[in-house]
């Protein structure tokens, strides 16, 4: 019966709800971003978002609003992850110094690169790529 006490008293319920909302809002507005903990610097995130938003220039925006917002976030995410992953390769360690620029470039061209990579992967998986057969695919 203890769990119904809070709901039965409207004043207590409202106060608890207000306190809950207040603490949530206060925590949400001052939290340290988990992206920092993961290892995403703010400069890289800025350039990735700017690149994916600027990439709309080269691609006519024929999609709906929600699709565009989702694609912008997705391309920024892909560019950020790709930049961090590439800079972790020892040969490409020099990218660490120019991570934001690389992220911006990748995000700008992500609208072209992602569908192209997808088509290429589909061809590779179905055995019609240029690397495992003499015919088909690009030279």
């Amino acid at each position, binding site marked *: 019966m203890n769990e119904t006490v809070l709901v039965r008293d409207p004043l207590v319920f409202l106060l608890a709800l207000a306190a809950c909302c207040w603490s949530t809002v*206060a925590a949400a507005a*001052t939290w340290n971003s988990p992206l920092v903990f993961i290892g995403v610097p703010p400069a890289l995130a800025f*350039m990735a*978002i700017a690149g994916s938003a600027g990439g709309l220039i080269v691609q006519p925006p024929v999609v*709906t*609003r929600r699709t565009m917002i989702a694609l912008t976030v997705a391309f920024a995410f892909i560019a950020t992850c790709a930049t961090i992953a590439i800079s972790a390769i020892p040969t490409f360690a020099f990218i660490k110094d120019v991570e934001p620029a690389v992220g911006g470039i990748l995000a700008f061209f992500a609208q072209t690169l992602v569908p192209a990579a997808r088509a290429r992967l589909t061809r590779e998986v179905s055995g019609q790529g240029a690397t495992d057969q003499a015919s088909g695919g690009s030279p």
Partner: protein
Amino acid sequence: MTNFIGWFAALVAGVTGLAMLQDALAMPLIRSVRGVAQHWARLAALIMITASALVLVVFPSERTATGYEVMLRVALASFMAMQSPCPWWRYVLQGLHRPKARKVVL
């Protein structure tokens, strides 16, 4: 509370800037030096607004502002939202295309 207001202003500026960017790109280009310069200046400003605002949304610890600066941001973000067609959330989430009335077929 100031923190939340500043964060919310950044969110409003980010999504409004992204929506305005899509509309600016769909707009017919005026073929003159002034028109082209205006177009690219608008695109650059909207990209900067969107990127910086969305970075502040996902990195709230980067926001360091005094109360007056937060007031300035809120005023600018609300002014920007007021430039959009009236139901702001519909402009951001659906665009200018209103749902057409269903045609009744008897």
